[in-house]
């Protein structure tokens, strides 16, 4: 592989997680933390950063150790590695950001069972060299953060009339309280997925139309 091809591949691995294989909007993985903590933008961001640290750390470690991990116990090994990183994040947050730690509660610890992370270890880090795994983890994390911020932001704006605790609409705004309560999470993600489905369907129809036009011209 020459240098240009290599950097092209690296770019692909980095970019795919952000939109094309977005862990939340496309693969629909890691639903529990996604829905539970996104009642405000800041909580979503904190969760996203915590997950980023765990994902990048464990991807690097798994990728470095991929030749020594026996196949039969690989899942257990991944989980132990992930759990170690999560414990680190959990204790660090508790020490330095007690307010955020309290608000996210058990969901920081529950990053362990976030299927996005285990999924990346099994599907990517266990088969690829460290630097590609790092890029893959970084891309996936950015995609995850974008999705969490989008959900958290919309829910906070509609349900509380603010964004990152800055009031947007003044005192006349009647907040949609339902949006920051559990049902709001389900409904918003449902409607977002619906919107993306619709977008994809429209694009597909258009592509089909173009193809037919080309066929008519040439036929």
């Amino acid at each position, binding site marked *: 592989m020459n240098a240009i091809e290599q950097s092209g591949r690296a770019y692909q691995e980095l970019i795919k997680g952000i939109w094309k294989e977005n862990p939340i909007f496309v693969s629909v993985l890691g*639903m529990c933390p996604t829905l539970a903590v996104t009642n405000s933008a800041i909580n979503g961001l904190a969760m996203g950063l915590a997950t980023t640290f765990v994902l990048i750390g464990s991807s690097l470690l798994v990728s470095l150790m991929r030749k020594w991990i026996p196949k039969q116990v690989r899942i*257990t090994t991944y989980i132990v590695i992930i759990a170690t990183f999560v*414990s680190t994040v*959990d204790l660090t947050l508790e020490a330095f950001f007690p307010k955020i730690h309290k608000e996210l509660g058990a969901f920081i610890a*529950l990053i362990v069972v976030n299927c996005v992370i285990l999924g990346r270890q099994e599907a990517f880090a266990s088969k690829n060299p460290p630097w590609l795994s790092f890029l893959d983890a970084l891309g996936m994390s950015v995609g995850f953060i974008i999705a969490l911020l989008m959900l958290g932001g919309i829910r906070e704006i509609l349900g509380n009339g603010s964004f990152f605790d800055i009031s947007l609409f003044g005192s006349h705004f009647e907040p949609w309280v*339902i949006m920051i309560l559990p*049902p709001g999470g389900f409904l918003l993600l449902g409607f977002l997925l619906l919107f993306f*489905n619709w977008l994809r369907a429209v694009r597909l129809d258009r592509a089909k139309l173009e193809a037919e036009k080309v066929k008519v011209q040439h036929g």
Partner: protein
Amino acid sequence: MGDLLWIFISALLINNFTLSSFLGICPFLGVSDRVDTALRMGLANIFVMLITAISAWALNTFVLIYAPYLRLISFIIVIASTVQFVEMVIKKFSPDLFKALGIFLPLITTNCAILGLALFQTTKEYGLVQSLFYALGGGGGMTLALVLMAGIREEARILDIPRVVHGTALSLIVAGILSMAFMGFAGLFSSK
């Protein structure tokens, strides 16, 4: 006794694991397209939760007071291996039960509801009996949500639904409406 009943009802309806704490969403979206599968998944879930409650209680009481920072790792390893062990015992002694629940057990083992149960019971400082009632309520609540969802999805299959709504989007919107309905239970114990 009233205390135990309160724990049970609260975990079953008011703080329903799936619909208000967002735990165990994966099986809720993945295994909820037929009522009988959903029911068996729910029962297997209750079963694993009871085992979890016992193991988490034992770990908390006997081991983790000496090393609290090992909580996450030890919870996961002990729960996963206990479930695997019990699975083998069931396979040996009751093949029928194994056939009904068996395929779901490995799926459930590292489900967030299970780890969530262990963590919540730790933060709430429940004793053994309280933990068991909590597990029963939580598992029952998840079963209820799963079966309700599966029932709705079975009906939805014969309806004329726009093409773009199918799949996860539909499930999530239905879940939102179910979750709203479950919010009504919050008034159940207003005098408390």
